[in-house]
Each structure stands twice: as C-alpha cells, then as structure tokens.
C-alpha cells in the first residue's frame, strides 16, 4: 500500500548558512563533513610539515647539531611519516574533495550513508588525537613501516599506542571507501550511466575498492604487532618459530596499494582540471576510466618489490619485479591521455592548471624512477637510500599534494562561494613547483651516491646537496603557507564566484556556489557525456574579448 509522499520545499539557504558549533559537529551533510575533514587534514599537514622542517634543519650540516640525540631524529621521521601518510595523504583528497563532490557529481542528494560518513570523521579524529598524544608523550622510533623484529622486540617507544592509532584511523578510511562505492553503485541520477560519470568518480571508485580490500589487512597486521609486543608469543620472532618477513608481507599487502589510495584521487582531480583549462573533451575517456580500475587491481600484485633485499625468495622477487613494471602501463595511459587532451586545446594557465601541469611532470618523474626501482639490480644498489625517499616524495608530494592543492583551488569557488586571488595563487603554484624540485631532486643524487635514509648524520661530501635540499624545503614551506593565508582571507569577502567561474561542465557547476543544503533544487536527469568542452568556442570568445577591449 503506498501513501503518496508529501512534497516539501527545500530550505533555500546554502549549506554554510548555519553557524552553530552543534550544526557542524552533528552534521550529516557530505559537504560539511568534507569541510570538517579539510580543516583537520590541514592541521595534520602542518604538524607533519613541522616535523619535516626540523629534519631538514638537522640535515643541513653533516654533524648532528639541531636535535639533541639520534633517537629524537628517529622519532621525528617516524612521526613525519605516520602523520603525513595516515592522517594527511590517505584522507586528503578522498575525504575532503571526494566527500564534497562525489554526490554532487553524480546528481545525488548525499552519500548513501550520511551518518557513517560523519562517524568516519570522528573515528579519524580519535585516531588523530592518539597520534598527537604519542607525539607529545614520547613518540615512536620504528619508522612508519613498524618493521619487526625492531618494533616488536627492541623499540622502547609507544609502538602499541601507535598501532592503536593506525588501527582506528584505518576504520575511518574503510568507512569512507564503503560509502563511496555504495553511493556510486546505487545513487547515480537517472541518465548518469557509468560512462557518463566524471573521471573524478571513476578514480574515487577505484580508490575506494583499495580502501575496502586493503585496509583490513593493515589493521590485522598492527593488531599482531601489538599482541606480539604485549604477550611475546613469537608470531614474528625467529627464536620462537616466527618469521619477521611475514609482517612485511602483510604490511605491504596494504601499504603498497595505499600508495594508490594516495595517488589515484590525484589522478581524479587532474582529470577534471586538464579538460576544463584546455577547453577540450578529455582524450580517451574509457582508457582513463579503466586504467584507474586496472591500477587498483594491479596494485595488489606488486607488494613484494618493497622486500627485494629483506630475505624474500629471489623467484618471488622476480615475479614481483615483472608485475611492478605492469603498473606502469595504466599509469602511462593516463599521462599520455592528459597530454593528448592538451594538444590543440585552448589552454588557460590559471592556478589549478599550473598545479595540474606540475602534477603531470612530477608524477612522471616519480613513476619513471619507480620503474628503475622495480628492477631488482638497481633496487639492490639504491635500497634504503635517499633515492627511494626522493622517488616516493615525487609521487606523494609532487603528485598527491600538488593535485590536492590544484583541486582545492579549482573547487574553492564552489566550496566557499569565493574566488581566491589569482596572482597569489599562481605565485604559490610556481613556488611549490620550484621549491619541490629543489628539495627532492638533489635527494635522487644523494641516494645514487649512497647516502642512506633515516640517519641524522652523514658524510661531509654530501653537504652541498643537502643544503640545496633544505633551501628548497624553505621555499616549499612558503608555497604551502601562502594558500592557507589567502584562502582564509578570501572568506572575509561576500560570495563573488557565481555558480560556474571556470565555465566547467559537470553537475557540481550547475548549482549555485556554495551549493544548497540538498544539492539540487530539481530532480536531476543527465542527458549528455561529460567534458563537452569546445576549444573553437573558447577561441572565439577570446577573440571577441580582445576585440571588445581594443575597440
């Protein structure tokens, strides 16, 4: 028996209208949860950044002088890694931009499980609080990898507490992934077929699959670490029949795919920015879409390339090496397709585009050095040197952080209703690009020359490159602080962005900025493919503008 549902008017106001603390802390609006995440990951980014700053200061001279003890340095790089990976990089794009945009992009009023979404933020905050607590009351010195037997038998730091923090934060990631996958499957608006989804959604879907299938394995491996430390039962202790390498298997089964949790959302953002600022439909839509899913699947088959020198069998090493090369195929497909999108486009170099172009270059560098590291012989030479450090920072900082900043600039008008100052935006993008390369390119050389990672002292001949790196880090720091300042300042002005400042396609640009509470006023029906940009039209508009200005 069906009773006719009653039609009610949407509240007219936008989602930012309510100001009480309660309205924020108890919100189930995906947009507000996205903002909560944005604030918290920003805090963690600067905490992790502070740790990095101290490390770079310490490494300016070959002797240990800034920090009192080598032990303090160990704790510092561990906290830098743990905070940046678990509390910034993994939630950054999915939980901030993904949360905010995914329902808007598919024409839904919210994620499938709004309460679960809010809960994931609380879970994240609890994990984060424990993380901060560890930092204040002693720290951990195992590195973010928690390798046994050091973590289980020798370290006298707060390993169990850190395991708890990682375990809890993992659940927030699982909940986000679960929500996204179910939302994409069940909540698409009529007409929003799989191949009309923006590539942002495809990438986030692939990311969510990794979160769902990988994160629980991390959870159980840190549980085993904690059990081993508390009971000393020997799961990873060779003296009692255990095998420390088993931990590495379990850990990397999650933590290698986790790299793609960090970088796939970066692909998501770049796939939106590039067509918009080249004014061309994306080249090879299906290839980009399927390459995201392919990356998600391949990512689970390559974890052993982290273990080439840790006692894994040579044959397993060979198989993992070959499979690691395979990941290059879908990644390269993406890079080629973005580049092909630029070809004959009408390119505008606004801030988001600068970040996106920076992403493509730096990600390619990181990816290609990744191929070098996937070859067994080279990896044996540069394993645990600064070459590795430089490689993964090119992927994570040059890739993910660039994409995150690009995305935040691109959607800031939508999120806040305000434009950011374009001049300062461009300047920050340039500073980040230059500072980043100056920081991390010398580290490739350092690693190649044999400087091992995770030491607080080094041989004097490495000093020049280290000083370059520290100098670059200071430029990078300025580049990161600038957006924080000018974006916060832009909030003082009244909303001035209008619904679609970039002339972008996509459902999120069809509603006003900031979007209304229930996202859409009318039922959404999708009738066309994504990325219907026309470079000719853009050229005509440009010529018209010039003509008007000259007249």
């Amino acid at each position, binding site marked *: 028996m069906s009773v006719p549902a009653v039609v009610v008017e949407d509240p007219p106001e936008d989602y930012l209208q309510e100001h009480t603390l309660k309205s924020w802390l108890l919100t189930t609006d995906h947009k507000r949860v996205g903002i909560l995440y944005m604030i918290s990951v920003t805090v963690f980014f600067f905490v992790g950044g502070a740790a990095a700053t101290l490390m770079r200061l310490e490494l300016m001279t070959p002797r240990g002088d800034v920090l009192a003890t080598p032990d303090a340095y160990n704790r510092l790089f561990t906290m830098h890694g743990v905070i940046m990976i678990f509390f910034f990089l993994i939630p950054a794009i999915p939980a901030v931009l993904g949360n905010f945009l995914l329902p808007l992009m598919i024409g839904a009023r919210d994620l499938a499980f709004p309460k679960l979404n809010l809960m994931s933020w609380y879970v994240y905050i609890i994990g984060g609080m424990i993380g901060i607590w560890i930092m204040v009351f002693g720290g951990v010195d195992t590195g973010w990898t928690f390798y046994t037997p050091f973590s289980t038998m020798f370290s006298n730091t707060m390993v169990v507490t850190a395991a708890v923090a990682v375990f809890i934060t993992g659940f927030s990631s699982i909940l986000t992934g679960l929500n996204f996958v179910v939302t994409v499957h069940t909540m698409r608006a009529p007409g929003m077929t799989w191949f009309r989804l923006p590539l942002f959604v495809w990438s986030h879907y692939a990311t969510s699959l990794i979160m769902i299938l990988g994160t629980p394995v991390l959870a159980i491996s840190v549980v085993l670490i904690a059990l081993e430390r508390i009971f000393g039962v020997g799961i990873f202790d060779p003296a009692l029949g255990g095998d420390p*390498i088993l931990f590495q*298997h379990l850990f990397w089964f999650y933590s290698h795919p986790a790299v793609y949790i960090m970088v796939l959302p970066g692909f998501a953002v770049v796939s939106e920015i590039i067509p918009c600022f080249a004014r061309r439909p994306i080249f090879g839509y299906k290839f980009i879409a399927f390459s995201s899913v392919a990356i998600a699947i391949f990512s*689970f088959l390559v974890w052993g390339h982290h273990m080439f020198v840790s006692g894994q*069998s*040579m*044959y*397993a090493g060979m198989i993992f090496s070959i499979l690691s090369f395979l990941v290059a195929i879908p990644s390269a497909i993406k890079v080629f397709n973005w580049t092909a999108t630029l070809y004959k486009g009408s390119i505008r170099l606004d801030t988001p585009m600068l970040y996106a172009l920076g992403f493509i270059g730096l990600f390619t560098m990181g990816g290609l050095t990744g191929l070098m590291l996937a070859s067994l012989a080279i990896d044996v030479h540069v394993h645990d040197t600064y070459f590795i450090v430089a490689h993964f920072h090119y992927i994570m900082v040059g890739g993910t952080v660039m994409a995150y900043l690009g995305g935040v600039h691109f959607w800031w008008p939508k999120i806040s209703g305000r434009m950011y100052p374009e001049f300062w935006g461009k300047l920050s993008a340039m500073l980040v690009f230059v500072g980043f390369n100056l920081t991390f390119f010398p580290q490739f050389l350092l690693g190649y020359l044999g400087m091992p990672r995770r030491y607080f002292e080094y041989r004097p001949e490495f000093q020049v490159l280290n000083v370059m790196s520290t100098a670059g880090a200071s430029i990078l720091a300025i580049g990161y602080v600038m957006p924080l300042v000018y974006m916060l300042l832009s909030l003082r002005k009244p909303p001035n962005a209008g619904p679609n400042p970039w002339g972008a396609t996509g459902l999120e640009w069809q509603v006003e900025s900031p979007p209304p509470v229930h996202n859409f006023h009318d039922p959404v029906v999708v009738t066309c493919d994504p990325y219907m940009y026309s470079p000719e039209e853009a050229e005509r508009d440009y010529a018209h503008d010039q003509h008007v200005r000259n007249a």
Partner: protein
Amino acid sequence: MTHHIIAVRTYLIIYFALIAFLFATVGASFLPSTAPHLLIAMTIATIKAVLIILFFMHVYYSNRLTWIVAVASLLWLTLLLAFTLADYFSRGWLDIPGK
C-alpha cells in the same frame, strides 16, 4: 521492493545438508593418515560455505553485483595467500643462503 522469499522447506533442506557435511568432515578426519586430509576438509568446508552464502545469505537470488562482491573478496584472500606462500615455497631453491 522485490524480495524473493525462500520457502521454509528450502532452509531446512540446506540446514540438514550442512549437518550432513559436518558429520562428513569429522568422519573424514578419522581416515588413515595417507588420505589427503587438507584437501577433503577444505572441499567440504567450501561446499558448506557456498550453501550458506547462496541460500542463507540469498546470493542465489541476488543481482550480479552481490555475486561479484562475494567472489571478489574470496579472490583477494586467495591473492594474499598465493603470493605469500609462493615466496615461502621458493625460498632456498637457489642454494644461496638467505635467498
């Protein structure tokens, strides 16, 4: 909403089949030690699991996506086991200590 409501009879048949398999697996464990115990035990367990998943969990009557999720999760479990075991089994083949 379209639920396929399964008959009580079906549930009971599945239940008694599960009980029968339980007896079978215990019985098989008393076979002489030359028998392939692990294989038999795992085959029976898999059959039991499939019965539960298909009927008690309604997958038999569900859409394709549910099938995919159910199969994929077991596939991923297999991935982890297969690759990890492959490492342990191939250690020592090279006759180089530690490889």
